[in-house]
């Protein structure tokens, strides 16, 4: 009987995958739609951003000034510029395949890991950057599922980071297996409490969560300024606006060895994504949250408490955002300083939309965003402005948000159902 175990497990995995696929189809409306439109959106965005790359390059522009004298030259300059830009983006985010191959050979023959580490640095950076994106994207997605627009992820990340850095440097004398989880949990709790305020205000008074979370962001920014600059609070005695370093017992382990920053938080993020999926689709609490998001009137009719679910969903959303901050602190920075979160919380709104508010979609979108952000640095070295990446991201979101536009461009036929469901509350899809 023992031999059957792996087979059984494989079947279990297959079934789970089928389930995910089914849910994706049911939850999003067509697998083809779910994958095809984002793909075309990304492609279109790459093409249009290419245009911006080309016109921001003086050599190309001057070549076009003499287009009629030497059209071949103009075209070839265009192509070289584009290929070097996107090549840099690729090498900066995934790595240089040749270099990785050579490093692998060196490693297997000589046993020297240093070149391999160097070759893997880009992809390690991409994955590391995608960690906060996954958490923050899940946070916004969970809010969407309850019909809530959590714009406050940025502030919640900061609050989560601050709480967990405090645990990281202030609580001493514990082994890592207590210290690290404690720092994570406190970070998540702090984010949860912070955002539950907005949820509570919405549930009790009807105050709109968009306004409240925006305001809570400012509160979080100024609160962190206060905490960081005052040595009696969390600042350093030198007066530099940053917190002390956390103790090594609170570090999230780096899995590929220094200087690669790829840390265990990545796998934790994947696990949490799976957990969010399970929570939303396999528990009664998740069913309530989704029902409130899909049709609050029906939720009330079915005896669910809309107010309770607003607070719960907002709290959980904040916990996830808090975890994003905690992971950055414990896995990457090891302290909190100015510019702790370079807009992860804001990007994650777009990212949740891109991922159709589905945990799997969010993970994929987060990988894309992490990759783009990490690759942008390399493009910048070539003299291509980093803003191009922001244009690229903005384009992707724009096309995702307007699938009709993508269909129009690619002349896709719309399969209209007789009764089309219109998501009027459709931030979350």
């Amino acid at each position, binding site marked *: 009987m023992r031999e059957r175990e792996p087979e059984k497990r494989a079947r279990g995995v297959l079934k789970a995958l089928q389930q995910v696929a089914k849910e994706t189809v049911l939850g999003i409306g067509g697998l083809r739609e779910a994958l095809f439109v984002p793909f075309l959106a990304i492609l279109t965005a790459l093409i249009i951003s290419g245009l911006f790359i080309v016109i921001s390059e003086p050599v190309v522009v001057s070549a076009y000034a003499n287009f009629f004298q030497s059209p071949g030259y103009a075209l070839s300059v265009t192509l070289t510029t584009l290929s070097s830009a996107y090549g840099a983006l690729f090498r900066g985010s995934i790595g240089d395949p040749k270099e990785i191959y050579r490093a692998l050979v060196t490693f297997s023959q000589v046993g020297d890991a240093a070149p391999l580490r160097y070759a893997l640095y880009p992809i390690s950076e991409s994955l590391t950057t995608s960690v906060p994106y996954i958490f923050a994207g899940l946070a916004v997605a969970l809010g969407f599922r309850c019909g809530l627009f959590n714009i406050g992820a940025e502030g919640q990340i900061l609050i989560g980071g601050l709480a967990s850095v405090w645990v990281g440097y202030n609580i001493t004398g514990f082994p890592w297996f207590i210290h690290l989880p404690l720092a994570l949990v406190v970070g998540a709790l702090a984010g949860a409490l912070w955002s539950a305020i907005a949820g509570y205000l919405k549930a009790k008074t009807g105050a709109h969560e968009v306004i409240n979370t925006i305001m809570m962001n400012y509160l979080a920014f100024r609160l962190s300024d206060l905490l960081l600059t005052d040595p009696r609070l969390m600042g350093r005695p030198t007066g530099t606006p940053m917190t002390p370093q956390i103790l090594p017992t609170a570090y999230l382990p780096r899995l590929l060895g220094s200087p690669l920053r790829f840390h265990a938080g990545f796998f934790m993020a994947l696990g949490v994504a799976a957990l969010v999926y399970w929570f939303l689709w*396999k528990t009664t609490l998740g069913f309530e949250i989704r029902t409130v998001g899909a*049709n609050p009137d029906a939720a009330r009719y*079915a005896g669910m408490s809309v107010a309770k679910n607003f607070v719960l969903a907002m709290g959980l959303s904040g916990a996830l955002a808090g975890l994003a901050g905690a992971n950055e602190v414990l896995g990457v920075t090891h302290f909190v300083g100015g510019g702790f979160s370079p807009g992860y919380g804001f990007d994650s709104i777009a990212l949740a939309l891109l991922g159709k508010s589905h945990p799997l979609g969010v993970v994929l979108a987060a990988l894309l965003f992490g990759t783009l952000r990490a690759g942008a640095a390399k493009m910048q070295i070539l003299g291509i402005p980093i803003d191009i990446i922001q244009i690229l991201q903005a384009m992707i979101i724009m096309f995702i948000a307007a699938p009709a536009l993508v269909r129009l461009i690619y002349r896709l036929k719309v*399969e209209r*159902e007789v*009764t089309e469901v219109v998501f009027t509350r459709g931030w979350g899809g």
Partner: protein
Amino acid sequence: MPPVLELRGITKAFPGVLANDHIDFTLEKGEIHALLGENGAGKTTLMNILYGLYTPDEGEILIRGKKVEIHSPGDAIAQGIGMVHQHFMLIPVFTVTENVMLGVESTNYRVFLNRRQAAERVSQISEQYGLRVDPEAYVQDLPVGVRQRVEIIKILYREADILVLDEPTAVLTPQEVKELFAVMRSLVDEGKSIIFITHKLKEVMEIADRITVLRDGRVVGTTKPQETSLSELASMMVGREVILTVDKKPPRLGEVVLEVKDLRVRDDRGDLAVKGVSFDVRAGEILGVAGVQGNGQTELVEALTGLRPVESGEVHILGGDTTHASPRQILEKGVAHVPEDRQGNGLVLSYPLLDNLVLNTYYLPPFADSIIIQERAIIAAAKERVERFDIRTPSIFVTTASLSGGNQQKTIVAREFSRPIRLLIAAQPTRGLDVGSIEYIHERLIEKRDEDTAILLVSPELDEILTLADRIAVMYEGEIVAILPAEEATREELGLLMAGAKRLPETLTTQPREKEAVTEG
């Protein structure tokens, strides 16, 4: 002379559905041609094609013998086609004239509105066709029947001579229906032609010159009222023999299940919508609440089911005070609620069917084990319910939005009737449904009544109330103006009560049927 309008071989397919299958339809000048059919029979698709909202896959449209292409409502209006939608498209804070001229404003120097000129035309139209209305009145102050007249004036103002009226009687009192029919007569006398879309057989027999019946996207036949009968039309519509009357035994009255005392409820605007209502419902009886829509029935039902706060008064269910109970507490007392707005409240349209079948029992075993959803139990229950309640669906995993209205309603009925209930509150349970589904829902209601469930049935359809109810309460402007035994009620009397023209003495209002009934007040 060629017919005013001729549709030839109109075909329109949606994925998986042939909504219109080679439909031929002609409208002669000066006739009222009824288009009769169940929901999903293709009436709306056909009219949307005529109005330029859909492009047909095949077929042609001829107007006065000339082939035309209609690509937008603008084209349709230019061809003299006007449509009165079921839901009025009027701006309440504008006057009648302003609403009528909206979009085709009379102007001075292209900038300034010329209200006087427009008002004169409105008066002239209203005189010519007997559509009495004050051009200067604000639409928000007008009763529904008059608002409908404004809609008709609106399309006449645009010089339409083919009028499409989509379920125009749904929101009217019996008296208002009479007035509408008179208007329709004078319109055709003046040379207009009318397509009258409806599913109400009696009205068709009363007003139509010709009747075309659609079923499953096809024309079943065209006939005249003199040459057919109610039961023949019904079986044409449904495709089988239909029993129009429901057999029911005399009620076996049990204990008082629902008791309402001097209930007051406010509407969304904060105005008192239910003004001191008292009644009770006993096990084994159906209390029908008749009344024109918007007379406080919605607020009454919401208050009883915990969805709307009670201003004052008391609600007792099975002896327990539920005046301020939550929807879930009321649900758990064994109260089922078939809501008025099934798509708005009763269902989550984006959910797969199976989730809607357990929408209010998902947290109870066997569907949940603490917080974990037991998918297998839900699937099994959903399959069984789909089977038992004859919900027509390709699978229990399709989105509920893809089901027809009748099957959506059956989904709600299946969910509510599959748990032990003592009181059923059904608000307009057959609104917008086809004859087959209405028949089905009626049978289920009677069945529940005979199982000793107390039933509160709210419906603006007098026929429905007269067929099902054991006692009838009439609501007018937030008050119950009469409660009378069904067998003593006549359409005429109910019509007058619904219109607020008379009321019966107070003594009747809380007395169940055994008490001697007084008829005239």
